């Protein structure tokens, strides 16, 4: 009891409100530092294959010998195709598949992105597993054009050669689908949507042939021309749309087969050189987090992952001594492993950060980082809520104004302050009749009104203000917070549904509006609603509360995005309505630099890509891949930023 009452006493201690900013800052620092220690050996683990059925690299591969001659011929055939129309090209590819006795079908698709049409055609062939019953299938993909918009000559030829070769085996327990999409991102999306009947049949054709439930997909990207190119390493791309990842077992199997069985080095996240130092591990991890956070499609495999089909892309990189046959054998061995699967891949991790090809951090280890950052907002929100319930600070004791002292007599009953019944209830009644009046009170006129409180026979004088219950005016803060969240829909709509040519102007207009809008809103707010300091505090409290909630929920889905938004929003925990113009100006400048549009501009400048390109990709993501990074930016980040900025901007317009 003693502990509880002392805690309750502490509740009203003025010092308690001093603590949260420091705690928040500590959480942010710990959150970021947490991320920085992850690459250390103590916090990461070596990868391992969890699913026993996969048995990576346990089979001999036989894709050699005269298959190489056939492959070269197919590569020549493919090299003759880029000049043809889509229709003619796909007819030729379909004929090549048909010669291997496979069932072939085509699928036309059209997407409308930023008022331009992306339209192309997929061609795919189904190898019916000789003893399979069409309940399961695995997919081998070679997009006609890779992510860099190069024609994937050798990749397509390899798929054709492997299709011919796989047909001879009788051991397939699953159907194998060979897919050649028209491009690397929208084609696979159209195909996998139609496969699960999640497409719009007006613009995307339904599939004529289907097989069973997809168990895995592997894409090859090998753009070497008709005379070949020997590569150095395999770059394994694994990021799915919206930061979803394939099962780690699939990645591990690929690494284990490529490096263990075939002797091909594996690399990831464009880290061409990786000597396993701390810096390089950290860099790999941060690149992975960036790709995950942005959530864009990184290859033909990306569209499969939202349908719970584990998928990766194998990209050949560098100049080395590995040829197309070793890539073919890698794919063969990978398919033999997938063919062994008795169940859908489920054993291993779906949430991980990779540091290098065989080192990872699991969700249990990295999640606290984003959670701590999200928690800092919640703590500040609670602190601001508590603060808003406190009375205004007592006037300065040195003030000369004489204050009439109302005096109340209260008794502490252990829980509450209750007015002593024999005392007059009226607060306004002059207390000079009170015999217990403190003698010092009459001597200083400047003291605030005080109340005598008696508890267990002892009596104390407490400033009356701290005994009053402060009511919170909730309507204005609530309405303001809600409307800022709806305000986010405007830019969301504008950026996703305007024609490509207008994206740049819209960006500039938004950048300007976002700089000035908080000022304008603050001015309007000040002169139309005249928010009290309490209401300002509540606005900030609600906004931070929602931010903390959203970010902690998001951290479980897309850790990286939550972390990035959390870090960029970190100053919002510390901004307050400042009195001076200079202080407000400095804070406002900091916030303007951290608004979503500015961050995007700076990030593009640092990465060396055009803003328009990014906006166009985002628009494509919205229309084609079902990307919701934009929703997070305009529905979570922007409202929090806006509320914080308005609070700071109120400082420019003192009451």
């Amino acid at each position, binding site marked *: 009891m003693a502990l509880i009452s002392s805690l309750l006493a502490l509740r009203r201690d003025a010092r308690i409100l001093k603590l949260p900013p420091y705690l928040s800052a500590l959480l942010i620092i710990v959150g970021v530092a947490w991320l920085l220690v992850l690459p250390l050996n103590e916090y990461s683990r070596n990868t391992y294959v969890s699913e026993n059925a996969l048995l990576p690299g346990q089979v001999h591969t*036989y*894709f*050699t*010998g*005269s*298959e*190489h*001659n*056939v492959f*070269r*011929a*197919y590569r*020549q*055939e493919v090299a003759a195709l880029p000049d043809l129309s889509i229709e003619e090209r796909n007819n030729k590819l379909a004929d090549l598949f048909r*010669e291997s*006795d496979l*069932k072939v079908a085509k699928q036309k698709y059209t997407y409308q992105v930023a008022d331009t049409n992306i339209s192309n055609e997929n061609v795919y062939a189904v190898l*019916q597993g*000789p*003893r*399979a*019953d*069409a*309940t*399961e299938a695995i997919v081998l993909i070679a997009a006609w054009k890779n992510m860099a918009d190069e024609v994937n000559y050798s990749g397509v030829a390899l798929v054709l050669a492997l299709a*011919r*070769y796989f047909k*001879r*085996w*009788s051991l397939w327990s699953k159907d194998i689908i060979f897919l050649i999409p028209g491009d690397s991102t929208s084609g696979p999306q159209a195909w996998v949507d139609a496969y*699960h*009947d*999640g497409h719009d049949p007006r613009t995307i054709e339904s599939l004529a*042939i*289907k*097989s*069973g*439930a997809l168990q895995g997909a592997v894409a090859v990207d090998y753009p070497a021309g*008709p005379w070949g190119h020997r590569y150095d390493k395999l770059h394994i791309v694994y990021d799915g749309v919206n930061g979803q990842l394939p099962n780690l077992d699939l990645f591990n199997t690929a690494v284990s087969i490529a490096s263990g069985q075939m002797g091909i080095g594996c690399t990831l996240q464009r880290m061409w050189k990786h000597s396993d130092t701390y810096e390089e591990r950290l860099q790999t991890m941060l690149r992975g987090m960036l790709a995950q956070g942005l959530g864009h499609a990184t290859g033909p495999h990306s569209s499969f992952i939202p*349908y*719970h089909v584990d998928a990766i892309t194998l990209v050949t990189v560098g100049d080395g001594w590995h040829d197309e046959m070793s890539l073919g054998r890698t794919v063969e061995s990978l398919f033999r492993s997938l063919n062994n699967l*008795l*169940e*859908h891949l*489920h054993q291993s991790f779906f949430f991980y950060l990779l540091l290098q090809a065989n080192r990872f951090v699991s969700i249990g280890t990295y999640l606290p980082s984003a959670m701590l950052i999200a928690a800092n907002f919640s703590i500040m929100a609670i602190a601001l809520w508590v603060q808003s319930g406190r009375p205004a600070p007592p006037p300065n004791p040195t003030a000369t104004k004489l204050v009439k002292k109302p005096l109340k007599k209260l008794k502490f009953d252990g829980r509450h302050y209750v007015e002593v019944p024999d005392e007059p209830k009226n607060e306004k009644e002059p207390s000079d009749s009170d015999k217990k009046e403190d003698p010092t009170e009459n001597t200083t006129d400047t003291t605030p009104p005080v109340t005598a409180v008696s508890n267990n026979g002892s009596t104390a004088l407490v400033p009356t203000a701290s005994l009053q219950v402060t009511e919170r005016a909730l309507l204005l803060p609530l309405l303001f917070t809600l409307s800022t969240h709806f305000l986010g829909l405007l830019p969301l709509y504008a950026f996703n549904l305007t024609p490509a040519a207008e994206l740049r102007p819209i960006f500039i207009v938004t950048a300007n509006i976002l700089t000035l809008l908080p000022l304008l809103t603050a001015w309007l707010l000040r002169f139309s609603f005249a928010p009290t300091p309490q209401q300002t505090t509540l606005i900030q409290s609600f906004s931070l509360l929602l931010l903390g909630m959203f970010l902690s929920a998001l951290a479980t889905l897309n850790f990286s995005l939550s972390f990035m938004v959390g870090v960029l929003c970190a100053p919002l925990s510390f901004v307050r309505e400042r009195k001076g113009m200079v202080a407000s100006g400095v804070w406002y400048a900091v916030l303007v630099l951290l608004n979503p549009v500015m961050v995007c501009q700076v990030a593009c400048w640092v990465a060396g890509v055009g803003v328009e390109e990014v906006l166009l990709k985002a628009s494509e993501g919205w229309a084609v891949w079902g990307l919701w990074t934009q929703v997070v930016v305009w529905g979570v980040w922007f409202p929090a930023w806006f509320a914080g900025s308005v609070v700071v901007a109120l400082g420019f317009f003192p009451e």
Partner: protein
Amino acid sequence: MLSFLPVLLLNAFLACVCASSDYHERLLLRPLPQSTLLASFNFRSNESSTAIEQQNFRYFPRSFAQILEHAHTKELHLRFSVGRWDAESWGQRPWYGAREGGTGVELWAWIEAQNEEEAFSRWLTLVNSLSGLFCASLNFIDATKTVRPVMSFDPEGDHTNSSNLHLLHGNLPHEVVCTENLTPFLKLLPCKGKAGISSLLDGHKLFDASFQTMAVDVRPVCDSNDGGCSLQMEQSVDMVLDIARSKRPRDNPIPRALPIGEIECDTSKPYDAEDTCYPLDKKVEPAWKLTELFGRPLKGACPLTEEMGDEGESLCINTPPEREIQVNTTGQYSEARTALDTLRCYKLPVGADFDLVLPEQKMTTGLVRAQPQLFAARSVNGHGQERGSVQAVIRNPSKDAVEFVYLESLPWFMKPYLHTLRAHVDSLTENPVKETYYRPAVDRQRGTHLELRMIIPAASTLILTYDFEKAILRYTEYPPDANRGFDAPPAVIRILSPYLSTDKKGIYLRTTPLLLPLPTPDFSMPYNVIILTSTVMALGFGNIFNLLVRRFVGMDEVSALGAGGIKGILAAKLGRLKALLGKA
């Protein structure tokens, strides 16, 4: 020109239905496109009902007849199937699909009983006995996997008292058919795989086939003239062999890349070079011989077969007349050609190996295959853990409208919404569904039974869709491979008109089964929870138990008790000894 006349052939096959005890067997070989070969084995044994009543079995297997008698089963059809029939490449199904089953095991039977309960208990007796006989998990056909079709099946036999007959149908789509099912199957034959065409049936080749189905059909056959009845058992095996794959020797089954010298390259290609070879399709019929394809020789005729007439010709091959066929045997055989020379039948020698050798040959006449009346494909749409939809695409390529019955028997955890059932034909505004029979599922009691009679117009495609909800199972109801998903049995399609089969067998086709991913719990989690709670329990229990049973004594009481352990015992003994000595 028609080089292939299946109708004629099938009719010739069952021309003679005799009431007496006899046994026939026949193997029909038919080359299919893409270097495949259909081998249809058919074994037929009759036993007169009087002989069976006297427990006198000559050709009919005793074990089987006793099971049928015990379970009061009048007619029975049992199917074991692997793979799927590729109708687009291979055309019409063997036996018009009447001797084919869905993937896994399928069983339907007419059981004599007074009421449904009795019929069901006899059905359970039947499936349990057959389970033992065929080494298959037929005993897993319980009430949830049993339906009572009303339109899809008609009895093939002649039943005198058909009012007491109950039709029950069960399906095991996930049953893996393998050699353990073939061996009992062969044991039912009079020659037991030792002679006759059954000597070709080798598990390695049979189960390496692209499609294979084993069927057992038992029906009573009555002669309308003398009224004598007999019980007929027909066993058939249909398999589609990939010739190239089957020719590979068993000790070297790996399809290695051929040496480049053995691949015919297209030299007309401009890039053709020593290291670049566009493989040329030779467009020739591949060479094969029986011993090579089946991995073992054909050990002459089964001596029990009738040797009279064309019934004695137990090996037939259906090829264009120009195809060269050499016979390789030391015994005596005879060859007969029928059906415009497209069907060559051989009377096998007894006691001598027989082999057919077909050399590689460039053909001028192509293989003509009969077009199937309908094509059907079925798939699961949608994704996620909660609901999905089934889409069946049924295509009618012919010039006539086809009437058919579509039978769907779904497991109880797949709950269809009947109001979402849509049958849609592009060229038709009216509903193609003419009649619906629906018996909804009861959780853990029985599955859904849906039968639809539909008409599909000429040259059109019917798309049948319905949505379903996935039930959440209890954790003990999941199989060990829970994350694989659950199989839903194939749909059975029976064509009613305009194609009437000449016998009572009917025309059938079946779709592929479905794999249904159900919401699956993380099974390692209960394990973790059990471990954790056990630890907590152990700690808590240990402490409390300790407190309860331990006797607490004050420090001052300890010395009174004296030292414990061996020292204490010794001291006590010593004290007692001292006392004794002192007394003395």
